[in-house]
């Protein structure tokens, strides 16, 4: 057991456990904070996979942006934050169906991932991926990049338009 293996298992456990808390918690505020740890764990996994830029982005965007937005949403919409949020109105049937489907899908995915003979090619060792990502974005993926920026702009305007108070 080298250090990387230990770190991987730690981060994987962290991610899975806290995602379970996100899903199964009765309190939505607890879910929100559990999501923080889940995302943190995922960022750690990125570091293990030597994706330094993405790990930073994960921390800044998810934890600094999306998660704060979500907590805002929770605060704004839930006057009483302590209510049970788990059961759907379909009740037991829906829950049962959800469990079955989730388990089946999880089992299928794991089975597929394990049974598939993947093409393996070790990534070249690099010091930093930032330069390469910048090159790619402004050359091969320029159109997608511009479309994404336009999408962000539209999303900002659209969100402001939808969320504002109607008179």
């Amino acid at each position, binding site marked *: 057991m080298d250090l990387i293996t230990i770190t991987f298992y730690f981060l994987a456990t962290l991610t899975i456990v806290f995602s379970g808390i996100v899903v199964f918690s009765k309190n939505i505020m607890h879910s929100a904070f559990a999501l923080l740890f889940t995302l943190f764990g995922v960022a750690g996994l990125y570091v293990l996979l030597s994706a330094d830029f993405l790990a930073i982005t994960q921390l800044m965007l998810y934890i600094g942006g999306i998660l704060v937005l979500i907590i805002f949403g929770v605060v704004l919409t839930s006057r009483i934050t302590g209510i049970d949020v788990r059961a759907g109105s379909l009740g037991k049937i829906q829950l049962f169906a959800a469990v079955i*489907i989730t388990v089946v899908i999880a089992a299928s995915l794991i089975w597929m991932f394990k049974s598939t003979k993947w093409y393996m090619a070790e990534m070249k060792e690099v010091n930093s991926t930032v330069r390469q990502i910048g090159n790619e974005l402004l050359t091969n993926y320029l159109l997608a990049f511009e479309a994404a920026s336009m999408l962000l702009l539209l999303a900002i305007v659209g969100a402001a338009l939808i969320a504002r108070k109607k008179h």
Partner: protein
Amino acid sequence: MTKDTLLLSFIVLLIPMASFLINIFFGNKLGRKSGIVGTFILGIDLALAIVAAYNKLFVFSEEPVIQTRIEWFNLGTVNFDIGIGIDNIATIMLVVVTLISFLVHLFSTVYMKGDRRYPTYFAYLGLFTFSMLGIVITNNFLLMYIFWELVGISSYLLIGFWYEKGSAANAGKKAFITNRIGDLGFFIGIMILFFTYNSFMFDDIFSGIASGKMPFNNPTMLTVTGICIFMGAIGKSAQFPLHVWLPDAMEGPTPVSALIHAATMVAAGVYLVTKVFVMFTADALTFIALTGAITAFMSASIALVQRDFKKILAFSTISQLGYMIMSLGVGGYTNGFFHLVTHAWFKAALFLTAGSVIYAMHESIHHKNDHHTDAQDIYNMGGLRKTMPWTYLTFMIATFALSGIPFTSGFLSKDGILAGTLAYANLTGGWHWVIPVLGYLAAGMTAFYMFRLTILAFHGEHKTEIARNTKENKLPILFPLVLLACLSFWFVYSSNPFEASEGWFQEKVVQPVSVVPETSQWKFLLPEMAEGQAHNQGDNPENSDVVQASPENTYLNRFHEESHHFHYLAMGISLFMAALGIMLAFMMYKFKIINAGKLEVRFKFLHSFLYNRWYFDELYQATAIVGTLALSKSLSWFDTYIVDGLVNLSSYIIRFVSRLTGLFDNYVIDGAVNMASTFTGYCGSKIRKLQTGKVQAYIVFMLLGILTMIYFFV
């Protein structure tokens, strides 16, 4: 310039139209002035007409007819030519019409003073004058028929002018409908001529007849055609048996009666016969003469017992028109037309004096506030001689003329006519002697009823207070009377009071030579007949009466010769008849030697027969009107039950079929459609339950689908 004269007469035609237009459009603005305007316009018209007539009669006398023709339009190869033309009789008629129209306008300015529709009245007078001049001036049947109908409508408007009165409205209707019957015959005649000779022009038709072309290639048809044309004259000139409208037409204003129903419109029929005189065959002429004679006699007899001032004059008019027609029928063309002109003057004078009397009576009635007395009944008059001397004087002159007293125009023309009938009867013989007999009887009766009227209305004591209070009228009424009375003297026409043929009139109005082929003329003129006659008289070769088959041997020449023979005989008989009539009138009504009342009682049947006008109205009521109504009713029944029944039956069948189709539609086709939609709706309502609106349920289904696909393909 002949063309200028023609143009002038055309202007004469148009001027009354201007009067009509001015009065109909600006009448309300003009108000009381419209009468003066109308009179003034007609005065100008009269002056122009006199100039035109003078030019034609004395400057261009060598030309028989000045005329023009233009192509109106053509259909295929047939040209519809029209034109105007003036000959001597047309120009004389122009003067007659315009003069009487002018005088009537003048008279009416006073007579119609209080009327509400004063401008309209003068507008109608203008329209009538225009139409009448149109008849006079045309030289073709097409325009003549058009103007003929225009005269009919303007006459209708004027008779029914006081349409607030039911009787006036009915009289207008009666006149119009009765005229339609005659016009129908006229129209048929025109159509026969048109399809035979392909023209409406008189010249074309006459030359066609002269060339021997016959309608339907049958000489008899020419007679029939002539009688058809004469039908128009029967209607317009109120001849037997269509005379019934004229007495009723007296419902119109009296000046209108003078203008239309004495001098001009009713003369249109006579004028028509003179215009187309040359195309009548001997048989047609006999028919015409007989019609005229019967009319003259019948209406004179009716006039004997009438009580209404105007009705007496109306029957007298019919009688005199009968004279004219009779004269034309026997071949006395010149005398017939001569009588038309002389009669126009003195009959207009009589009607205008009647108007004068009635106007004075009305004024008097109005003054006395009496609304029950009939202003037109001669038994309410009497003694008017003293209160209305000028009216009386002019009335007397016109009465002398009508009765045929020497030194009047009526004597000249009537004498000529009677001489003509005698000549005719002598030439043709047989039952034709009836015609002069009827003529002379009518002449005697004419004198009788005219003097009866004079004595009852003007002589003796005032029969009522109203008659006593009458006053002589003003100058606009008296001037026409005096002028017309002056025109009723002999010197206007001839220097010799006993011999019309010495005057200018007989010289200018020359009888035309008939264009009818010899075979359709009098049989005794035919060469073989003439030869036979000559053979009979063969032993006396010096006999100047021996007939030669030569161009000079026409009926015309023979007729003139005979008329001349009979001239003094005719004059004698007619004077005798007139004197007899006058004497009887005086004995009965003035000196009361013969009691009129007793006679009336003794011959009660005859009296009521005459008083009720030979029961013609009742006869028509019982036959024509009831028959028409019965026919209409039966046709209506046919319509209601047979035609409508068929229509209803077919509609019922269609409705039945439609109902079946409707049922099929409702239940089979609509059922199928509804079933499809119901089925779709049913399926939809079932499937709809899958749509819960729950997003998460959709995701579950989606995932199930994905899983299925994964396990299916992998």
